[in-house]
């Protein structure tokens, strides 16, 4: 539409847009650049009066930081295992919803609850379930003769607990996305396959799966990114412990910035993570771009 149609000058419309643009710039874009700048400075909020430029000292430290390396490894393992489970269950659940069960919409609404709940509440729910004094999980284990132990206080089980909680929270999202992709498949294809004598499993493998592959890549990418940066549930359920066995990168950043007060170095870690994510996702998208295009996303 032309400017003149609405009888106002260009300035008027820019004035409408400007508040939002400036606001987003001030709160979202400018701070991100400031973080990059801080990453080149020494700035401990307790000891330093202000950020002091210290060349690439922080980045040198970054490369030798064993704690960060361990956090990265944990985050990667966490992101991959949680995403794998979410995609697998999501695929099954989406196929179920796609088969149009009675009361589908209400069921879908209930199913979405965990992902719309506050993440800290999800953490609380699973803390309660795993808790040995009030939770049913350990109770059931004791019933079958497993001696009592603190589920979230052992490195392996604490890690698994976080994966389970994440799967519970985010399988709805993968389900929703895959369900949308399945709904887009023309129904005639099923009819044709059935007429050729294909079983339900054949249809799933040969008709549905190839056509939702693009969405699997998209949903997987989204979940990998988010799970990699998981913080809220770690905070509630394990606090990064026992020891540092569930200290993922976001928690590591949090500790550097708000417990050690190393704002400069924490910014370096954030900038490094951002660079890493950008590179990984550039590769991810390039590797799978054709499949993503087919998902129409």
């Amino acid at each position, binding site marked *: 539409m032309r400017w003149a149609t*609405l009888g106002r000058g260009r300035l008027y419309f820019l004035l409408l847009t400007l508040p*939002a643009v400036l606001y987003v710039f001030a709160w979202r874009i400018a701070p991100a650049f400031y973080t990059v700048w801080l990453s080149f400075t020494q700035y401990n909020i307790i000891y330093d009066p202000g950020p002091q430029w210290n060349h690439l000292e922080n980045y040198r430290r970054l490369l030798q930081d064993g704690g960060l390396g361990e956090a990265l490894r944990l985050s990667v393992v966490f992101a991959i295992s949680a995403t794998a489970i979410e995609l697998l269950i999501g695929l099954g659940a989406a196929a179920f919803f796609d088969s149009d069960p009675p009361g589908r919409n209400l069921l879908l609404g209930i199913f979405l609850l965990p992902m719309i709940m506050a993440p800290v509440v999800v953490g609380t*729910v699973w803390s309660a379930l795993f808790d040995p004094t009030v939770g049913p999980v350990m109770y059931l284990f004791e019933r079958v003769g497993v001696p009592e132990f603190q589920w979230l206080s052992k490195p392996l089980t604490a890690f698994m607990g976080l994966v389970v909680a994440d799967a519970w929270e985010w*399988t709805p999202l993968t389900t929703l996305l895959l369900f949308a992709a399945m709904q887009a498949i023309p129904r005639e294809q099923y009819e044709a396959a059935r007429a050729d004598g294909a079983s339900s499993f054949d249809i799933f493998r040969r008709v549905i799966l190839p056509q939702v592959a693009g969405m699997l890549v998209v949903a997987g990418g*989204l979940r990998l*990114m988010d799970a990699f940066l998981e913080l809220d549930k770690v905070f509630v359920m394990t606090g990064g412990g026992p020891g540092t066995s569930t200290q993922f990168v976001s928690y590591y950043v949090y500790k550097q910035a708000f417990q050690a007060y190393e704002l400069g170095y924490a910014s370096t870690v954030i900038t490094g993570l951002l660079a890493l994510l950008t590179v990984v996702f550039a590769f991810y998208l390039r590797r799978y771009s054709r499949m993503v295009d087919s998902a129409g996303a």
Partner: protein
Amino acid sequence: MRIVAARGRRRAPLSHIVGTALVLGWTLPAFLYLVVLSVKPEGLIAVRSALVFWPTFERYRELVITHLGLPIWNSLLTSTVGALLTLALASLAAVTFSFLDFRGKAALFLLMLLPRMFPPVTTLIPIQLGMKTLGLIDTRTGLILLFAAFQIPLAIWVMRTALAEVPRELVESAALDGASLPVIVTRIVLPLAGPGLLASFILAFIFNWNEFLFPLILTSFNAKTGSVAITSFSGGYKQLPWGPLAVLGVVMTMPVILFVLVFRAALVRGFTAGAVKG
């Protein structure tokens, strides 16, 4: 739709029953356990086999009358006002983006969506420093100012999709009849884009309500939100007060359940848009 229904009928009903049971069994027990804990009498709370008991609502009453109510009130106030501000800023911008062509529009639009590409943690430190400088640490005003900014990109995205469905001819003919721009926007465009506005508001509200990291570092007592209050129970090796904790969790989930039940369709659309374009 008819084809879908026909296909559904052909499937064995058994698979639907099993599927429904699995879906409900996956989602509900975990959350319902928290509900059970929240009404379990104090004396029974550590008796894990006791699932049938006379419920106590004493803790919910306490929440209203004690200091625990403050975080919920803070959450409610900051999320609502923040979402309204988001809506005001985003809808004005979305109208421009949707109805007008101007040079640099695509670039400006991309700039608005840019923040969704990098994770919020990238802005954590500068925002805390900025809030300190402005003296807004631990104030509701600070949180509201921040919340207003967070969901603008998503709200613009959702609003633009909704505005695309407003008939252009209607707007043009109103303009030719001499209606001024504010009249066109408030009388024609926004009412027609009502569902989009509602969806944007609900999404912004829920994301604000669920936000944890920023309230955690920006508030301590006066402006502490529900999310932060939940985590302030944990930590240390003492026995957690599971009763109040469960109550807080249930109360934090109530508005969300309400929204899901009432606005399911809008939510599904919004979350899918938010996720795919995120």
